[in-house]
Every structure is written in C-alpha cells, then in structure tokens.
C-alpha cells in the first residue's frame, strides 16, 4: 500500500545543503537527514523479551536499536518483513512516516549534543551502537552512537522542524555543513 505514496521528508523545505555558521578551516559537525528511512517500533510480547532480543541479535543486515525496556527500533527493513520475522515475539508498528532521523558527525559532535542532553556521551562511557532516550530542547530524542564521532538523532516528525532549528543554532559556533 505504502508504495503508492511518495514519502516527503518533513525537513525537505528547511534542511538545505551547504556550509553554515562560523568559518573555521573544517566544519565542526556535518548534518544529514536520513530520508527515506524504514523505521519499525517493536515491543516484546509478554514473556518474550529474551527471545526477541536473541532474534534481533541473530538477524543479519538489520539494525535494532534499544528504545526502552523490551522495546526496539528496527531500521532498514520494510514493515511487512519485520512483522513476519518477529511473528509471535513482538508487536510491530510502522514508524517510517512518524519519525525523522538526523545524522550528526564530526569532531565537535559531543560539544553540540551536550548542550541538549544530560546523557554522558564520552566515548569511554557511551559505546558504539548504544542508544538512549532523552530530551533536547524539550523534544524527546532517541539517540544512537553509530561511529567514533557520529550519532543519529530520531525525533517525532512533527517536532523535527523546530528540533532542526535548535540543532543548527547550537552547531553555528563550530561551523557546520549539511549534506
């Protein structure tokens, strides 16, 4: 069904590519909107938390990010495939239209993010592939460390525009680029 519609990024009219903010030699952070993205919210059925965690761990080619107790965001796979694969283990709901994911990376990434969240993101404390649920600028954010100095921030679609404005404002002092 969803193939009949063209999914438009909620940030299509605001996240323009280019170089912005302070003019240092290299940009402090690089932002990119991950669109389109396949996002499925997955919640373990009663008594199936362990089996679900194992099924996700053994599923190659899929990213399963912790999103609360016995809950995950499954990325990169279409909804029907996720639902079939996790049948009996979890309740699944398609959030591809409901959330926007912004990737932020670069040498100043922690300087930007620590203006918004109390979560300790130091590399010795917050390892790669780990996720946290927190709040930045009053917006609920699901964040995941995806590389050495790279994070993905997932927010509700309706908040993504004001969140983008906040994020770019915080990045200005370091210089940022949008790709």
């Amino acid at each position, binding site marked *: 069904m969803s193939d009949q519609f063209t999914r438009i990024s909620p940030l299509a009219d605001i996240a323009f590519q280019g170089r912005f903010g302070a003019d240092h030699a290299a940009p402090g952070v690089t932002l990119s909107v991950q669109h389109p993205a396949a996002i499925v919210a997955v919640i373990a059925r009663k008594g199936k938390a362990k089996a679900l965690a194992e099924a996700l761990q053994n599923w190659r080619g899929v990213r399963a990010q912790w999103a*609360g*107790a016995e809950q995950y965001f499954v990325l990169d796979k279409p909804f029907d495939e996720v639902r079939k694969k996790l049948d009996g283990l979890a309740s699944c709901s398609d959030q591809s239209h409901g959330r926007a994911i912004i990737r932020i990376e670069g040498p100043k990434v922690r300087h930007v993010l620590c203006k918004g969240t*109390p*979560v300790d993101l130091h590399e010795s404390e917050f390892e790669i592939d780990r996720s*946290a*649920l*927190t*709040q930045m600028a009053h917006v*609920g954010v699901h964040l995941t460390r995806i590389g050495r100095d790279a994070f993905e921030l997932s927010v509700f679609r309706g908040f993504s525009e004001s969140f983008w404005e906040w994020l770019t404002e915080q990045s200005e002092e370091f210089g940022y680029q949008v790709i």
Partner: protein
Amino acid sequence: MRINCPHCGTRPVEEFTFNGDASVQRPASNDPKTMDQWFDYVYLRDNPKGRFDEYVHHSSGCRAWLVVTRDTQTHEVFGVVTARDHAKKRVKA
C-alpha cells in the same frame, strides 16, 4: 534531584513526571458495600514527612513507570524499582 532509572541510568528530575502515592492498593471487590474502601483508594492520601514510595513516570526517557522511594523533606532518594517489580513484590508479600 537525580533519579537512577533502572533502564536509563541517572537522569535529572526534569525528565520525570510524578504521579503520587505508590502504597495505595486497588480494592479487590466491586461490591457496593466496599464503597468506603473505594473512596479511600480514589481520594484519600496521607501526606507523610519523610520516607515515601511514589509512582514516577520516566516521561522524557524510556517511558517506564517506576516507584521511587525518597525523603519528602530532604529529597534524598533511597531506591528506584520498576512499577512491575514493585507490583510483583507486593503480590508475593
């Protein structure tokens, strides 16, 4: 005040929503004769000075319901458990 969420780690109080006394227990019966118990359960609350078990929602975090034991006078937090574990413990007791 900081609360150590069992799922998320230590977070500031701004991330949480407080929802009152966790010691009250829903009456088992719907019999109209138990109206007094229901009135107590729905409306009447103690206002203790000192140690207090309280329902707390990690609303800006993992969205789990927790029970936080704290001192209402000093805000010292003695312990945090999930509401699920709190309920299970109560069934056993």
